[in-house]
């Protein structure tokens, strides 16, 4: 039994990192909903097996997001609310103290890669679900399944920035 993805579980404050991690959670939730639309059978069973690996990937995305939120909690590039607060500081306009982006764009890219890969897996699952409905006796399902498993493996491998984390 896989745990339900929980966007509120990691300590991410509220801001960019929380949102991107929530979008990672959404991909896994979409995968679950797609599998639930499929008729019982071997294909659905295989997709349920692959779900365990997605949980592992989501866990690693959570660690990336936590690391980013810890190191760059106030990264404001896409947070107009925070920029307004900094501009209104009574001492001076603190926006000028900020850099133009996070010091380590690799960390952000790693998290975005994880999100993209998780969504790609969800899309592959949807493709497979549609294929099964279009032609329940399709003979190319094993090929599609194999493609999906490859996508999951890629998701597991993706998004680990060098020098930051190693996925267990």
């Amino acid at each position, binding site marked *: 039994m896989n745990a339900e*993805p*929980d*966007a*509120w579980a990691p300590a991410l404050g*509220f*801001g*960019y990192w*929380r*949102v*991107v991690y*929530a*979008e990672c*959670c*959404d991909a896994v*939730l*979409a995968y679950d*909903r*797609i599998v*639930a*639309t499929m008729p019982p059978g071997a294909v659905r069973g295989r997709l349920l097996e692959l779900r365990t690996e997605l949980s592992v990937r989501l866990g690693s995305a959570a660690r990336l997001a936590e690391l980013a939120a810890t190191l760059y909690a106030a990264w404001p590039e*896409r*947070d*107009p*609310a925070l920029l307004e607060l900094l501009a209104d500081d009574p001492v001076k306009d603190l926006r000028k103290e900020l850099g133009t982006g996070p010091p380590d764009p690799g960390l952000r890219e790693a998290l975005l890669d994880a999100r993209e890969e998780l*969504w790609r897996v*969800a*899309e592959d699952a*949807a*493709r497979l*679900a*549609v294929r099964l*409905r*279009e032609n329940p006796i399709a003979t190319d399902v094993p090929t599609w399944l194999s493609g999906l498993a490859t996508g999951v493996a890629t998701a597991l491998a993706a998004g680990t920035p060098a020098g930051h984390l190693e996925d267990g």
Partner: protein
Amino acid sequence: MADEVQRQRADREAARLLAARIGLPGVPVSMREPEDAPGPGLGTGHWQRHVARLSGAYERAALAVAQVPAGGVREELDDVLAVLCKRLDRYVHIAEVGQALLPDDDTTDLDGTAPGMTPYLDGMAEEIDGRLRTALTHLTAVAAAIEEIVSADVGSGDSDEVIAAVDRLLTGVPAP
């Protein structure tokens, strides 16, 4: 304890407001309250509207067939309706996959679309949308053809001609 719950609610609401501004279209599903969660099955938005249109085309065909008196012609058309019903069922399942992948509901604005508005679609969601549009073209064409056959043949009793027309109908308008 109550203060803690209140504070958590306020924090989450602030996070959702920010997510609506900086995230992908809409507030992420995983950040919403249960009442704004995606609807099950077809949902209450874009995908449900697809199925309503497809069902409308099927109903139109069924209505035309219902005008035909019992007999050989009616049996042939009933068989066509049974095929259409199976196709409709398949399209409904495909629309459910669409809702599962990219939920859209008229019961919430947090999905980034106002009621009745078409959501932003890309990737597989766009493909599914395209398939359902093609399916509607197919069902509408078959319904119109059935109406034509019925209006031409009700009362004429020429079952051979109707059977030939039905055959042309099913082979000439392939299902998507």
